[in-house]
């Protein structure tokens, strides 16, 4: 794996060593990672299903976005912080795990999907803010979001079962 010394240094850092050796740190941070992450998923789903026109089509998308976005971002920040702490406990092993890599790739793709939606598709939101007639680009963004985040969950869970297998 590239940057091997960097991952090793992360793992050898005092934070990495603490998470790895403490009896309570890893399970606790993992639980907080899961709780914040399911909050990301739930709030994203509210937005995505609305974008697909499956729920609350009489309620403007701009409003749904306002209602959910803060929750999504705050929960995401917590999820990322705890995820990073977990990663640091065993960084060299995680970067060699194909499911971990797939999880990161899916998250990156979800990020790109979100940026495209936010900066290109969203510009003419006024035209489809309310009602069940929703452009294909919006539905596509929502579908991609759902598929990618489901894969993130699946790959994330699989990492827990395969961590020792792909050791260098």
């Amino acid at each position: 794996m590239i940057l091997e010394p960097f991952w090793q240094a992360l793992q050898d850092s005092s934070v990495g060593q603490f998470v790895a050796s403490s009896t309570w740190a890893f399970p606790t941070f993992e639980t907080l990672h899961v709780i914040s992450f399911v909050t990301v998923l739930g709030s994203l789903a509210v937005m995505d299903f609305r974008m697909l026109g499956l729920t609350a089509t009489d309620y403007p998308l701009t409003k749904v976005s306002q209602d959910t976005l803060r929750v999504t971002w705050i929960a995401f920040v917590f999820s990322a912080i705890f995820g990073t702490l977990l990663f640091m406990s065993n960084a060299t092993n995680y970067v060699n795990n194909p499911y971990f890599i797939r999880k990161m790739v899916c998250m990156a793709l979800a990020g790109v999907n979100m940026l495209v939606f936010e900066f290109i598709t969203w510009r003419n939101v006024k035209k489809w803010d309310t009602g069940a007639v929703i452009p294909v680009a919006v539905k596509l963004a929502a579908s991609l979001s759902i598929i990618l985040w489901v894969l993130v969950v699946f790959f994330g869970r699989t990492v827990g079962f395969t961590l020792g297998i792909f050791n260098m």
Partner: protein
Amino acid sequence: MPSFGDILFAFTGWLRTTFLTDFSLWLSGTSFSLWLQTHFWVIPTLQSIHILSIGALFGSAVMMDMRIYGIAGSSRSMAQTTQRYWPWIWWSFLILLVTGVLLTVAEPVRELINPIFWIKMALLPIAVVLNFLFQAAISRNTASWDAKSAGHTAIRLGAAGLIILWIAIMFCGRWIAYAPT
């Protein structure tokens, strides 16, 4: 004074003396359990569905509570908000129950001889009953709520209590993997 860990150890020790030991050993030998155990992808897939359903349930509860506390969604009435989210909460709960039962059949000893699993199972019915009471209290008050959202302290407390309960249940769910055995 015994630590919490000691209490959990003692709990596990006691669980081993009950019929649950024989039952979980019998269950893990059934052909359905063996099928679940020997197909590697089954358990991660069931767990992923379980987690996605928690996301739907907990996310819906958070959205509803934000409306109750006036943080978000205030341009919709209380009735509209609750009608939107109750089905998501109960359908997710049903899927959680089904996948949870399947996961227990797949790994009977890990779950049934586990103090944290039983703490989770004790919290679940409390959450379900509280959720019913909470739902009834809200539907009785939707009209007066939309006229004037002040007051309703019991509903606000119920909302906060349920969120804390769901968080505690998620904590137990993850800590099942780390219970002292």
